[in-house]
């Protein structure tokens, strides 16, 4: 599926924890469909949104489907910019080690495997946000 005209910057802002509400899962579904449109996509994980990327999610006890493996395929879909806010991690006692290891293969660099998660400051997220054409909040 191709779109005509200039490429737009799309940012998906995730601020909510997974499972307590459906926003995390359904926002991921938008990202996957949106990947086919070849826009300049980034995901921002702020506030409780950082919890979405936590590793070791085991959902059998709550009877819900564990959708965290989907984050692993984002790289294959060309979604390589996952910005995780450091202040949000710090406030929750989390580090990068608590998050899933998400990678993509850089086709411009001999398919070298690189991390998709970029831990950045609130200031950097702020600067990224203001440059977007479309910001989707869930």
């Amino acid at each position, binding site marked *: *599926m191709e*779109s005509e*005209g200039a490429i*737009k910057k*799309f940012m998906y802002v995730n601020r909510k924890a997974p499972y307590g509400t*459906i*926003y995390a899962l*359904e926002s991921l*579904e*938008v990202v996957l*469909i*949106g990947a*086919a*449109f070849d*826009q300049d996509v980034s995901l921002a994980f702020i506030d409780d949104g950082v919890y979405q990327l936590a590793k070791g999610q085991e959902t059998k006890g709550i009877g819900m489907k564990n959708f965290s493996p989907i984050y692993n395929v984002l790289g294959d879909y060309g979604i390589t910019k996952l910005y995780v806010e450091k202040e949000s991690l710090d406030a929750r006692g989390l580090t990068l080690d608590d998050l899933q290891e998400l990678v993509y293969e850089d086709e411009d660099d001999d398919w070298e495997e690189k991390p998709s998660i970029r831990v950045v400051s609130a200031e950097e997220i702020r600067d990224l946000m203001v440059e977007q*054409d*479309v*910001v*989707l*909040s*869930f």
Partner: protein
Amino acid sequence: MKLAVMVNEGPYQHQSADSAIAFVKAAIEKGHEVMRVFFYHDGVNNGTRYGVPPQDDRNITVQWGEIAEKHNIDLVICVAAAQRRGILDADEAKRHGKDGDNIAPGFRISGLGQLIEAGIQCDRLVVFGD
């Protein structure tokens, strides 16, 4: 300008739908075009024709239908979110073996691509949610 709106919550439960309607009306009054309103998450519940709100209160689903017809606005309900929540058109009902459909006049069910397309084609996309 060409505008798109996303509604993430159902009617009455949150103010999102009301705010979105007021915004859309104001945008049209200002001479802008509202190309599409995309309903996601519980927002798909704006599109059921079986709502019977109190007579002395606004009928949000009907308001959407009227404004869409009057100003040629595309009201799109996300198929995946709709399936989860039981908003079906005749085709969907048949496909899933359900004994009826409930989609309201003026709405159509389609994919998330319609949301992305609206973001690409419009000048601004405004999200109303919780």
